[in-house]
């Protein structure tokens, strides 16, 4: 991955981390992107902690250092502390994460690995545990955060590591 940013936003800083990034070069889509992001966090049936599990698993898979370093305050308030975040790793299946959280991780992994070959056993478990609207929400959550992480990776300027940073939803 390139450590040099591949696109530069020369505009006057606004104080918003996202608007001041290269994404601010395309304001025509950024406002819509941020509104969709907020709707995904606030207007779907999954709670913030479950959304954060999917987002952090995605960040780990894509290896987006920015995304891995962020913790959304609403997910923390919903019960996702650092002890539980540490379980979203290689050994998640034997961790004390809930069945729902483990299935969210399995679904996220399948999204990357081979979305056209979801095993019947995983489908049956997802259908048993989640309501129909929750499965649609989970799908959109994973697609949205995958796109965001891969956008950040594609645009370069990624450090090797960053300290944790707690954020509220960007507006």
């Amino acid at each position, binding site marked *: 991955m390139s450590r040099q940013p591949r696109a530069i936003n020369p505009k006057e800083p606004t104080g918003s981390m996202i608007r001041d990034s*290269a994404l601010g070069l395309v304001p025509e889509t950024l406002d819509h992107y941020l509104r969709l992001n907020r709707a995904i966090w606030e207007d779907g049936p999954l709670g913030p902690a479950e959304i954060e599990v999917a987002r952090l698993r995605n960040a780990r898979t894509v290896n987006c250092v920015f995304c891995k370093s962020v913790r959304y305050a609403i997910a923390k308030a919903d019960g996702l502390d650092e002890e539980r975040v540490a379980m979203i790793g290689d050994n998640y299946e034997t961790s004390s994460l809930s069945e729902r959280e483990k299935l969210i991780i399995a679904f996220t992994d399948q999204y990357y690995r081979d979305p056209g070959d979801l095993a019947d056993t995983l489908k049956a478990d997802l259908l048993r545990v989640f309501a129909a609207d929750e499965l*649609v929400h989970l*799908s959109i959550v994973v*697609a949205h955060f995958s796109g965001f992480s891969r956008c950040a990776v*594609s645009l370069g300027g990624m450090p090797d590591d960053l300290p944790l940073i707690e954020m509220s939803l960007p507006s």
Partner: protein
Amino acid sequence: MIRLVEENDRQAVMAKLPDIAKRYRELERALWRQEHLPAHVLELCRLRLAQLHRCTIELERSESDLPEGKRAALSRWESAAQYSAAERACLAFTEVYAMDTRALSDAHADAVKQHFGDAGLVMLVEALGMLDGMTRLCLLWQLAPQATGAEVTA
């Protein structure tokens, strides 16, 4: 066959979450109307993603008109004469993005910027996130393709 969703098209699936679907449609509309990347270039990238993912349902639909012959030759865009240098730069970027985003090089990005500038590069990666995402969701949801005979050759 077990499916995650009962519906057969993405609008019907998304309708389960009307507030999110509304925001998604607004972003999608803005993406196809922006002026940093021509819509036909985005359409070529969308179709190439569909070919690489072997997603018939995304391949058979159309978001934007394409110049004559470009759709048919897309699976051999590297050697086909129909494609401009600008289109090739975006298609090369799209292919690496789809396979392993971390493998994208500065050269891939520079090639896109040479034709569309920094904002064009940003627009392309935003668009690829959305287009690749919807392609993967069509596969996960096992949406039914229409019988149009669309080519899925990768």
